[in-house]
């Protein structure tokens, strides 16, 4: 049985004069115990999807079930079974870490004693015991996000929704959070994760659904998506246009590149690009080859495909940062009401 199933979800918002289709027929299926990454730019409909699946919002059309329970007709049952951690850390910043967890535990219908015990366990797991009696205002972004995630795990949910769990975090905190998420996965928790980072979906998700303008435009594993984009590339900049031409010939031979179409050379910028199926080991080969031929390298980089590359290859347009566009309002209107919309306008 699929842990999460959504069919034909449609949701429109009226933002002043125009209506925005935030969800335009989303279909999803997440098998039990697996991780689905919902990948897309701001305003694609990721947050709205999560809000529908966690009973915070009713879809205009379509239906969704979580662990076999309809999110509209059996909303109360669904709320007992799922955990939600949002992109804006939804915890009380004037309560301490311990108080927050105790409160959420009580609201999940634990007894006072059970709630206390569960709070201690989670503080331990999330490495927050030392900060347990400080109010959240004093927490760092990463600590706050960990506490938020801890709050969503109080009732041992079988299904977890993580809405951009690492947006805005520094690399170190991001790695910590990834580990915590992986630990949940190993416990058999089904996770739906939204993210703007291909890398994050790659790290955590078993399969990825790419969303844009409220519908799924591609599905597959991270490898399948990367294959569509063309995988990793190496960019080399030399000091001299002739040298870059010679470098391209040498590298095509050394790396056994059969398709010359996959390479490119820009004489003006003295920049050449070649596919690097071997990733960083190919980087070593490139440096050895060029060094052996006495070609001096001005710059060299291994480029991993980004969300932009995925979008470019799937839609022919980049992830236009739609901050000024009304499409942004769909996610914004869904998540944060008036205040943020005004700040943007």
């Amino acid at each position: 049985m699929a842990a999460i199933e959504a069919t034909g979800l449609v949701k429109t918002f009226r933002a002043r004069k125009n209506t925005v289709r935030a969800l335009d027929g989303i279909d999803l299926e997440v098998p039990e115990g697996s991780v689905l990454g919902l990948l897309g730019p701001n305003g694609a409909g990721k947050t709205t999807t999560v809000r529908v699946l966690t009973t915070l919002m009713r879809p205009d059309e379509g239906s969704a079930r979580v662990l076999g329970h309809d999110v509209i007709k059996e909303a109360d049952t669904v709320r007992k079974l799922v955990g939600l951690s949002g992109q804006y850390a939804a915890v009380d910043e004037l309560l301490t870490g311990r108080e927050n967890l105790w409160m959420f535990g009580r609201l999940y219908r634990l007894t006072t004693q059970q709630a206390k015990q569960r709070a201690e366990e989670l503080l331990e797991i999330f490495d927050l015991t030392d900060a347990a009696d400080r109010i959240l205002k004093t927490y760092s972004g990463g600590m706050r996000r960990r506490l938020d995630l801890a709050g969503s795990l109080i009732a041992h949910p079988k299904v977890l929704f993580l809405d951009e769990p690492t947006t805005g975090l520094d690399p170190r905190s991001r790695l910590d959070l990834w580990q915590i998420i992986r630990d949940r996965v190993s416990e058999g928790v089904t996770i739906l994760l939204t993210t703007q980072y291909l890398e994050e979906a790659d790290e955590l998700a078993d399969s990825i659904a790419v969303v844009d303008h409220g519908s799924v435009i591609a599905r597959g594993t991270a490898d399948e998506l990367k294959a569509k984009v063309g995988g990793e590339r190496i960019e080399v900049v030399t000091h001299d246009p002739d040298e870059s031409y010679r470098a391209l010939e040498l590298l095509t031979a050394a790396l056994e590149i059969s398709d010359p179409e996959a390479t490119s050379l820009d004489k003006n910028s003295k920049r050449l690009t070649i596919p690097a199926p071997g990733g960083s080991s190919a980087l070593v080969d490139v440096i050895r080859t060029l060094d052996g031929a006495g070609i001096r390298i001005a710059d060299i980089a291994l480029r991993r495909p980004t969300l932009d590359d995925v979008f470019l290859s799937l839609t022919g347009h980049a992830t236009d940062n739609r901050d000024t566009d009304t499409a942004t309002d769909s996610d914004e209107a869904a998540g944060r009401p008036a205040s943020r919309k005004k700040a943007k306008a």
Partner: protein
Amino acid sequence: MSTTRESAKVSPIGQAVSDAGILAWRTLKRIPRTPDMLIYATIQPIMFVLLFAYVFGNAIPIPGFPGARAYREFLMSGIFAQTMAFAVASASVGLADDMSKGLIDRFRSLPMARSGVIAGRVIGDVVFNAFVMLVMVICGFIVGWRWHNGIGQALAAFAILLLFAFAMLWVGALIGLSVGSPEVAASAGLIWLFPLTFLSNAFVPTPNLPSGLQPVAEWNPISSIVAACRHLFGNPSPFASPDGFPAQHPVWLSLIWCAVIIGVFAPLAVRKYRLTAGH
């Protein structure tokens, strides 16, 4: 406070009460941690007492009650009622703040009673207002205000004031959930209260008002709370039309007003909470 033990299986009503208790605990926990708000909430009524007692006191005669102290006796019930009415802002700002920070979403995703968040806010704020009232009572005693009908009737007056705060907090809840941003909630919660409190008998005896405004001021819900308190405290309570219903039955009218406000705004606020961003 709801830290009492209970089983995990409870009736829907038991659950609603328990959730309201937990959220009220949260509201009260937060108050000492926002000292600026705590200071503002207690300084403001003290300032009003002193300003009105000493600045307006000598300029506003109380018809039928000569003497300098009459105004202070008259004034205190007005200040009490005004302060309780201004409780609107703490609910509106508090809930708008929760909403803008994503906490309302968190609560809505939990298997808790739909009334819990607002009820917790309202109950916590009533308890806080009881504290503010204590500060004002002390302040009133210092400037020479007294009650004259015994402690029983005085307590009844305080109960009516807190009931009024409770009623007004539901109005604030509806405003807070409707506007979304704490800054807007602060002004939207307060701006209409100024004409409402000044067009009442709170600071100026209604016989001193222009005759066109007298009926408006005497039927004003704030006036009925103030008149009920003056009646129960045994303070001067002049009316422009002493034979009218507001003058004859101040306590009943105050209770009717509270019931009407709660009856209209509590369901609207809970409905708003349920539909917030849910469309």
